[in-house]
């Protein structure tokens, strides 16, 4: 029984220390997903959380200045002004009408300060202008 207890203690130490490290890491990096419409309704501490927000980049809204890029994100009929201040260059797929996922916090002036921006091109599967219209449906042919 004594041996079993020893193993139990060893395993316990590993588990407890990992759980506490996990808790620390969780506190440091937890990020809330919100929609643009939800952000307006957030109050108090909820509004100060680190957030991840998805939306469509409003055409013509991208303005690049030194050190930051400003743009407007649209979603569910609402809009959100964003300043991107991160160091990494914006992804190539970040263009007008692209789907973007931004990560950061709400600034005091009501602008969202993003540290990370991911984007994917929405137009990829649409037919280019002049081609046959986009098929409304695909169907099996077997």
């Amino acid at each position, binding site marked *: 029984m004594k041996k079993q207890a020893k193993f139990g203690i060893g395993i316990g130490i590993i588990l407890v220390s990992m759980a506490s490290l996990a808790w620390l890491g969780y506190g440091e990096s937890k990020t809330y997903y919100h929609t643009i419409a939800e952000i307006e309704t957030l109050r108090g501490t909820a509004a100060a959380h680190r957030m991840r927000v998805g939306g469509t980049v409003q055409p013509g809204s991208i303005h690049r200045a030194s050190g930051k890029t400003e743009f407007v994100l649209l979603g569910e009929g609402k809009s959100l002004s964003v300043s991107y201040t991160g160091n990494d260059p914006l992804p*190539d797929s970040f263009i007008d009408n692209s789907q973007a996922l931004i990560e950061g916090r709400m600034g005091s002036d009501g602008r969202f300060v993003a540290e990370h921006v991911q984007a994917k*091109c929405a137009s990829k599967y649409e037919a280019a202008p002049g081609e046959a219209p986009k098929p409304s449906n695909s169907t099996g042919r077997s």
Partner: protein
Amino acid sequence: MDVFGSFALLLAFVCALYALVGGIAAILTRHPLLIKSARQAGMAACSLIFLATFSVVYLFVADNFSMAYVASHSNRDLATFFKVVALWSGQEGSLLFWCFLMSIYIFSVLIAYRNKHGELMPYVGTILAGVQLFFLTISNFVASPFKALAIANASGGLDYYMRADGSGLNPVLQYPEMIIHPPNLYSGYTGFTIPFAFALAALLGRYPGEKWIHLTRKWTMIAWCFQTVGILLGAHWAYAVLGWGGYWGWDPVENASFLPWLTGTAFLHSVMMQEKRGMMKVWNVWLVFITFMLCILGTLLTRSGVVSSVHAFAQSNIGSWFVGFLTVVMAICLFAYLKNRDYLKSENQLDSMVSRESSFLFNNLVLLVACIAILSGTLFPVFSEWFTGSRISVGAPFFNKVNIPLGLLLLFLTGVGPLLAWRKTSGESLRRNFLWPIIIGIAGGVVAVILGARDFYAIVCFLLSTFVAATIAVEYYRGATVIRARSGLNWLSSAMELTLRNTRRYGGYIVHFGMVMIFVGLAGQAFNKEVQKEIGIGGTVKIGPYELLLQALDQKQEKNYVAERMIVEVMKDHKPVMILFPERRNFPTNQESGTMVAIYSTLREDLYVVYAGVNQGSEVPTIHVFLNPLVKWVWYGGIVVVMGTIVALVTPRHAVLVLSGSPALSGSKVPATAPGFTTAVPSTATLREGHD
């Protein structure tokens, strides 16, 4: 070809269905003809899947843009080999390709054991057919790669039509690694189906002994090796293509590939406890069940968009199918376990904290805790939404905080475990085995500090890496000395001879050494530097010992894209070293662009240069430079791991220590009929080994 292919796929579904239903009937009735027909139906299903896959490839190569899948993943100007690999560039093709690779394994198993293991194989065949049936259902009825483009006509019906050209292949996928990364990873994912089927078969059929472990050892190692290579290639692809300077970002899809690797690694180690000491039987069965389920979960995460990821695959309804399948698998595993758990009683107990058993136990614990931490971190958004209503994700700090210490603990066990004896290790043996490695390890840590290491984990990692490398060197030295004394061969030949005599043990050491190299490479991250700067022509950037001069910008027109190139001269200590060409590629077909990172790589460090684009306000090009020490060790370590795995798969020269169950030997040296022999011989043989 499209009709042919989709018909083959449908017929494969019918065959797999027969193999499943016929297999169940065969198990119940034990009728030899039924057993045979179920097996042959399984083989027919595999062959038909091969045909269907080849016909999709044919459609790509033939530029058949009437097919929805081809039209959205290829275009006329695409190089032919990219047309072939475009098969696995999207959802439908990837799933078919998954099924294709799995069928290669299944076909090999069915044909290799067609006249052997008569009790076990009907179960195995039936389980494999069940798994295959699920994927065939998806490929036939949910995400068929054989959908044709159609458009509504005036009368309300549908007309087929063909597009003049396709949308093109996603530029980030047009890179050599993409040819080999998915096949490797999928070969890993699908390969674990085989040990899963054997474990479940042995449990369901109450098949005596450890035979399923002996039979599946090679399959498991092959799957594990593919998985390792797949993960590393994925990391290398991310490093060389995505241009953010790193190779591992704890992205959900990366994590998904890592999870079954962790449990698979745990399984490869803990089966030794069962082989040698008859312990951990329940654990092993569950490890392999869980590994398989994690493989399915990995496919689910990758393909369904449940958790958003840079891989950015479209949301699709495929997720619920996978969740359903996972539930069924879990239910069957639980049922089999609850019904036959008495057959999994352990024959021995742990004797001592300082023993091989206990090192395996902790190895498994560490791998499992890492797996659970990564799994919960990856699925956190899903779970938090269930429980609290808000979707919360965790990032790199969470994963690093837990996994770095766990990784170092594992590294420590890698050095210690193989040198501990089974049951109990004496103090004398401890001193003899570890005195020198500990001294050398501490020296390694001191050297790291002298060379400028300040990060605590990095120092520990270098210390442990030298320690583990030293334990392996000492083992080799000791074994080779014995052989040299007896045979008079030189050191190198003696070491070769030693490896070939016990491939399993020394192959394992080589794999461990490869892992040490990977750890050294990972620790290099503590010294990463980066600079981002807008520079005009003639401008310079300094990083570490290097100075980079932007000589010119140029453009070149390729068949499928336009490349804008920076011509960057690299100088070290004011002497020109080389010229790098970081590129940005614009693909007109799908209006996308991609980066081509230029890397000057040495064993010491990588100079990683990205053309980050032109500032749209000032029209000045931006360069992003990273100096990443020791990255190459990760890739070379991977190569060593593969070599070690191959060595471990080779049949040893003197068959004394080989398990009788391995196919190459059964029936030759060992009387396969003798019951109990399989466990008795290897345990004594390797016990001696362990005490060596």
